C-alpha cells in the first residue's frame, strides 16, 4: 500500500514472482510495460520477450519481479489494465518450469593456469554446460537452467577467472497438459 499517508516501510516480506504476460505485438508495447514498472516504482529483476504466435501477432513476456504481496497484486492489475495486454498469469502460483540461458566467458587463469583450465571444464561438465568456444587462454560456456543453477555456476567460475557473462533472464511455462 503506497500513499502520502501510508505506514512507514516497516519490515514487510518481499517475495519474488514470475509473471507471464501475453500482449499484442504492436510498436511501443514493451516501452508501455517497462514504463509502467518504472513509473510506478516497481522492480523488474528480469524480462524476456519474443513473438510467440506469429499469425496473431502475440508476444509473450516473462517478467520476474519482487515486492510485498499487495504490491505484486497491484502489479498484476496494473499490467492487466494496459490496453494491448491480453492476459497476465502468476506462474509462481503454479508448478512451473523456469529456465534462463547464460553465456559465460572464463579466462585469465593466473599462475595455476592448467589447474584452473581443468577445473573450469570439470565444473562445466558437472553443470551440464556446453563449451561453445575455446582458445588456449579462454572458454565460453553455454548454460541453460534455473536461475539458482546459473547463479551458482557463475559464482564458482568467479573464483577461477570469470571475465564476462551474458544472461537472458528467465523464460517460464507451467507444467502439465493445460495451456495458458
Amino acid at each position, binding site marked *: *500500500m*503506497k*500513499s502520502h*499517508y501510508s505506514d512507514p516501510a516497516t519490515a514487510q516480506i518481499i517475495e519474488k514472482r514470475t509473471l507471464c504476460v501475453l500482449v499484442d505485438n504492436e510498436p511501443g508495447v514493451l516501452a508501455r510495460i517497462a514504463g509502467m514498472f518504472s513509473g510506478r516504482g516497481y522492480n523488474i529483476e528480469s524480462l524476456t520477450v519474443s513473438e510467440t504466435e506469429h499469425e496473431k501477432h502475440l508476444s509473450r513476456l516473462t517478467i520476474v519481479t519482487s515486492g510485498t504481496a499487495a504490491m505484486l497484486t*497491484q502489479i498484476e*492489475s496494473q499490467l492487466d*489494465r*494496459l490496453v494491448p495486454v491480453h492476459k497476465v498469469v502468476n506462474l509462481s502460483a503454479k508448478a512451473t518450469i523456469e529456465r534462463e540461458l547464460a553465456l559465460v566467458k572464463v579466462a585469465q587463469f593466473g599462475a595455476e593456469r592448467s589447474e584452473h583450465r581443468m577445473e573450469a571444464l570439470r565444473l562445466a561438465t558437472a553443470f551440464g554446460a556446453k563449451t561453445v568456444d575455446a582458445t588456449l587462454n579462454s572458454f565460453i560456456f553455454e548454460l541453460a537452467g534455473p536461475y539458482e543453477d546459473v547463479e551458482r555456476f557463475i559464482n564458482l567460475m568467479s573464483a577461477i577467472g570469470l571475465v564476462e557473462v551474458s544472461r537472458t533472464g528467465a523464460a517460464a511455462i507451467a507444467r502439465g497438459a493445460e495451456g495458458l
Partner: protein
Amino acid sequence: MSETMTGAEMVVRALQDQNVEHIFGYPGGAVLPIYDALFQQNSVEHILVRHEQGAVHSAEGYARSSGKVGVVLVTSGPGATNAVTGLTDALLDSIPLVCFTGQVPTHLIGSDAFQECDTVGITRHCTKHNYLVKRIEDLPRIIHEAFYVARSGRPGPVVIDIPKDVQFASGTYTGPGDVIHNSYRPQVNGDTRAIEAAVDLIAKAKKPVFYTGGGVINAGPEASRLLREFAKLTGFPVTSTLMGLGAFPANDPQWLGMLGMHGTYEANLAMHDCDVMINIGARFDDRITGRLDAFSPGSKKIHVDIDPSSINKNVKVDIGIVGDCAKVLAEMLRVWREKKYQVQAEPLKSWWGEINKWRSRNSLFYKQEKGIISPQYAIERLYALTKDRNTYITTEVGQHQMWAAQHFHFDEPNRWMTSGGLGTMGYGLPAAIGVQKAHPDALVIDIAGEASILMNMQEMSTAAQYRLPVKVFILNNEYMGMVRQWQQLLHGGRYSQSYSEALPDFVKLAEAYHAKGIRCADPASLDAAIQEMIDYPGPVIFDCLVAKEENCLPMIPSGKAHNDMLLPDYEGAIGDVIDAKGKQLV
C-alpha cells in the same frame, strides 16, 4: 460501407460517424490536411482555442458535463507538448477524450525534424492508450477503437498521432461497426456472489455509510438514480468525494456533505466510526483516507469499481466488486428486494443520533463581518442566486475550489467540473467554455482564484469569438490562498512567493477581452452585483474582493486521522497543529 478517401478526410468522416459535433483545437503545419477537410464540411464545428492546454480542458468540461467523448485536435511538437497537462488531468480524473495530434511525415520520424517530438513516447504515461498511425490502412480502425477505449471501462484520454503523409495518403474508409477489441474487454457486470455477500453485509450494518465517488458520475445518470433509490430504500447516510458531488442531492437530509481533507465533520466521523463502508466508484484517494493506519479502523469495507487496480490499491477491502456502478447498483437492488432484506432499524436510529450530534458542530461555519466579503459568503450568495437556474459550475484550484465544493450545493450529476486528481490551476475557464458549448443555454460559472485564472486567461478570447457567455467569478484574496494556508500551518507563516503581486485590473482585462468586468468589495452590494453578472448576456469577469487571510476549514491536517480535524472554532494558533512528522507529508 467502404469508400476511398484521404487520411484527413477519414478523420473528419470518423468524427461524423462517432456523432461528434464539436472539437477543440489549434492548427499547425502537421495538421493542415485535417484542417482543410474540416473547412469543407459543416457537421463538425471546430472551436479555436488560444492555447492547446485550453483545448484539452475545454474538451474535458464538454465531456464531463455531457457524458460524451471530448475531442481535441492539435499540431505536432509544441502543439502536442502543450496538450500534456490536460491529458494528464483527464487521466487522473477519468475523463473520456480523443486527442488527435499531427506528426512529421513517417520517413522523417526520428530525425529531429522541424516540430517533431516523440508524442507517443511523451504521452504514453499520461493517456489511457495511444497510437502512432503509420499506415493509412490502420487509420479508420484506430480512430473507432480510440473512441471505444476512451469511453468504455474506466474512461480516459486516448491520443492518435497521425504523420502528415498518412493524412495525405488515400485508402479505404470503414465505419465504426461494433468494435471488438483484441485484448481490451472491461468487466462491467459484477460478480453475483460478491454482490450477494455485499447486500447481506449491508443489511446487517448498524452504522453504515455510502462513500461515493467520480465513478458514479462516469457511469452515467442511471447510476445516480440507482444510488438515490438504494439510499432511500435503506435510509443510510451518504457522503461523496470531490469528484462525485451531485450524484446524490445535497438538499437531501441523508446527505452528509463532502468527505476528506476539507470535508465536513459529520462525513469524516461517519467514515471513521462506521461498521460497514459502501464505496461506490471512489478510489480511496489520500485526500480521503488521511493516515492509512487510522482510516476507519473498525469497518468492513465494500468497494465497487470498474478498474480492478483501484481495488485493494490503498486500502484493503473485505468485498471487492469489479463492475460498472450502475450495473452493480441495479443488481444490489434486485438482490435486496428479492431476498426481502430489512435494515437494522433500531441501531440505525442511534447511528443517525450520533451523526446529528456531529452535524450540530456546524463544521462549515464562517463569520461574515461587516464591510468585508467572506469568501464562503460569496459562494453562498452565488449559490442562492443561481440555484433555480440551469447552472453548471467549474473551478480553478485552491481554497476557492474547496469553498465551492463546501458551500455550493449540487443536486444533479454532471453539474460540477473540477480538477481533482491533478489539481490543475487554469482548468476552470477553458472547462467552462467546453461546458457552455455543450449547454448553450445554461448559466456556466467558473469559480476562480486570482492566481489560477491567470494561467489560462487567454481563453477569454475564445469565449469572445464564439459568444460564449461564461462567467468567471474570482474570489480575489490577493494570495495563492491554499499555498499561504499551508505556509501558515507548516512553515511558520513565512509566505514565500505566495502573494499575488502586480495583479492586472480584472475589470479592464475583461473589457480588453470584449467582456464585461464587475468588481465588488462590499457585502451589502454583493447580491446586486451577482445579479448583474447573471443578467448580462455575454462573458463576464467578476472580481470579488474577499477577506485576504481566511483559511479553508474544516481540515484534516496532514498526518492526522479523520477524528482529529481542525474545525473553524479552533482557538489555538494553527501553526502549532501539525507536528514535525506531519510537516513532511503533502
